């Protein structure tokens, strides 16, 4: 019996540890980074890291929500481009900026978010209402949405964006970029909602066993709708920040992000089988990836070897988190 209690203790410890699984890896990277270049731990550099990761981090947050209810949303990466793209298309004056100038600039932010919601609703309709497989639906949507952006932009980049679109991406509050604030606030909110509200817990219940959740009186359909639409809305917001920071919307904005997003979420301990993982873990996941990139940049690694190193370090981080965090990967 003695071993069993010991085992029990260990199991519980592991369950806790899972959230912190990446901390050792992050510390390791930080040390290496500082050795590589004294710039690394300087405030401005750390803020750089946070700022450049903020938009993708919000995508990770969104994807994490969807994964926890055992769905997937690949189309997020296209929403990042399309939502601000449509807004720019409608508000940017005809001419150099390649827009139509149909709406006054003030409309750009509402339009961006509206597009996000619309995409979410379409996804939800396909997945929840018609019961199609989420992976393939959102894969289709990914292609469609990206295609639409290429279509309306003719492959060109929208710029001369209205001021309201630039604000979030460019302003600073208390010496820290707004996007960083937003990112941190959203994750804090995510941690609270998922960890300490009945709504948040219902996500885990649904991801763990949807029938059981229904039996326990959770309105699974409604929760799923909320999650899927929220995810798209967050993607639109992330796109807004990104195009604000770059003061433009490239027709390829967001392409290929989804890989990073999944890597971050899963390394961060979010399970693809639903019902597992925390927002804090997801945050450490994306933080780790961007710290690695920053260190590689500071180290001035030869251009053609960055990819290989990056991947290798990810794999090591993965193995590390596996060791410290128990079966963090399942």
């Amino acid at each position, binding site marked *: 019996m003695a*071993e*069993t209690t010991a085992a*029990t203790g260990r*199991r*519980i410890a592991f*369950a806790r540890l899972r959230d912190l699984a990446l901390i050792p890896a992050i510390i390791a990277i930080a040390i290496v980074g500082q050795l590589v270049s004294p710039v690394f731990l300087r405030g401005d550099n750390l803020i750089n890291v946070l700022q450049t990761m903020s938009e993708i981090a919000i995508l990770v947050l969104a994807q994490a929500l969807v994964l926890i209810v055992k769905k997937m949303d690949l189309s997020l990466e296209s929403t990042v481009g399309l939502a601000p793209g449509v807004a720019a298309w409608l508000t940017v004056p005809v001419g150099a900026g390649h827009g139509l100038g149909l709406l006054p600039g003030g409309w750009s932010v509402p339009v961006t978010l509206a597009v996000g919601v619309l995409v979410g609703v379409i996804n939800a309709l396909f997945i929840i209402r018609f019961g199609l497989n989420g992976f393939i639906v959102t894969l289709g949507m990914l292609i469609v949405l990206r295609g639409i952006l290429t279509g309306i932009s003719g492959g060109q980049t929208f710029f001369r964006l209205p001021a309201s679109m630039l604000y979030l991406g460019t302003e600073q509050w208390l010496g820290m970029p707004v996007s960083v604030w937003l990112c941190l606030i959203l994750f804090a909110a995510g941690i*609270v909602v998922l*960890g*300490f*509200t*009945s709504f948040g*817990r*219902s996500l*885990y*219940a649904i*991801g*763990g*066993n949807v*029938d*059981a*959740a*229904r*039996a*326990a*009186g*959770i*309105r699974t359909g409604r929760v799923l709708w909320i999650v899927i639409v929220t995810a798209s809305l967050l993607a639109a917001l992330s796109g807004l920040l990104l195009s604000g920071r770059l003061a433009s919307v490239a027709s390829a904005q967001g392409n290929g992000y989804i890989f990073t997003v999944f890597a971050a979420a899963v390394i961060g301990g979010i*399970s693809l089988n639903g*019902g*597992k993982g925390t927002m804090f873990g997801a945050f450490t996941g994306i933080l780790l990836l961007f710290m690695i990139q920053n260190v590689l940049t500071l180290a001035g690694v030869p251009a053609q070897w960055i990819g290989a190193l990056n991947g290798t370090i990810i794999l090591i981080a993965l193995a590390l988190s596996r060791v410290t965090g128990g079966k963090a990967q399942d």
Partner: protein
Amino acid sequence: MVATPPVVEATGVTKRYGSTVALHEAAISIDQGQTHALVGRNGAGKSTLVNVLTGLQAPDEGTVTFAGEPAPRLTDRDAWRQRVACVYQKSTIIPELTVAENLFLNRHDHGRSGLISWKTVRRKARELLDTWSVDVDVRLPAGDLDVEQRQFVEIARALSFGARFIVLDEPTALLDAAAITRLFGRIRDLQQQGVTFLFISHHLEEIYEICDVVTVFRDARHVLTTAVGALPRAELVAAMTGEAAAETAGARRVPDVAAAPVLEMTGVSLAGAYEDVSLRVRAGEIVGLAGAASSGRIAIAETVAGLRAATGGVVEIAGSLSQPGSVPAALRAGVGFVPQDRHHQGYVAQMSVADNGTLTIPDRLGRAGFIDGRRRDGLARAMIGKLAIKTPGPELPVSGLSGGNQQKVVMARALANDPKLLVLINPTAGVDVRSKEFLLGKVGEIAESGAGVLVASDELDDLRRCDRVLVVFQGRVVAEMPRGWHDHQLVAAMEGVDLDG
């Protein structure tokens, strides 16, 4: 007496799945304070009725009323939960979540901040489990609990809503004798307090023990409803099966004590599970392994079948040393195996009856690893005939069968390679009385035909058929009982009480 409307009344309820008719114009009416038994063979529609009565599914036709008022909308889960609590046949435990959270899912305690106060939740959970004397750490993921503990979490949760009407769909199927006694004790308390029960079980003696009214379903239809006392067991079985019950007598010729042993375990141990187990099963002999939850009996059986590798000792099957922890080796040595939990280890749900039945004998299906479809279906048809599996054909996915027939498929697979040694774990769990009689009869025949049988089971009915029963207590074989023991003796031994000493 005042005529209070029944707690729940369902009339003319019809429910179809695709064009499978699960319920046809079925009706049931349960009065205040009753403990109402619902019996019927596998696939009779009991669980479907439960789904309708607990608002998980709307009936295609028919009405459900609670205390005379029409049932709430399906989406209004809270209204349903005030009216009825339920232990479903299918587990509603969420493995990733902690025991505490599973107990208070969607009704967490909120602190002043409006946020969940996990401390309170954990405390309440611990208190709740203590009243059931279930000793598990509520911070554990529920997935780490063993079958019995999980079942108790389900029961404890259902009974903790304070609902006045409680549905129990085969709550005892996964419990050992001691656990069942504990459960019934609690049910009796609640009966005192006037709580109404709908109780489903394939153990008819349980019906007679705690129920006052029984309703029988057959082929999706309501057959009869009457006071339990007024319906002797034979007639009950007849009502369920639609034919006069032929109670098979347990008369078996005494096995030949000189027959060669097909299983010889000497000083076998598995760290953390059991220690120094020695036992022998002779050809033509049926040996039972009894024990309480987590006693190790199942670990022992699984070791023989090659699912677990013993950490010490010798296992000989049919005279030759068996390779530890290798199922293929065990199969080659002539072991047929029915695993503990059919859903978890028994069959591949979306594969056909034929494929599941022949999974262990690929070499018999054709030359050079190829599968001759005709030969496979031929073998499958033979099994279907031999075990009277109720299926339209060998190509039906096993997921389409009812519980009892799924278990028959698993049994058929165990028999597929004409085993010299048959290892059965809870072979009749969740199987209706008729199928149970049938399966156990088959086991008898197998033994007659010269195979040895090792049965590790919670069900006294299974053990009663054995020539000898070995009692496992905390990982050690503590007693051996020849055929003809009394239930209380065995149960006592399983609890570690020595009556004779």
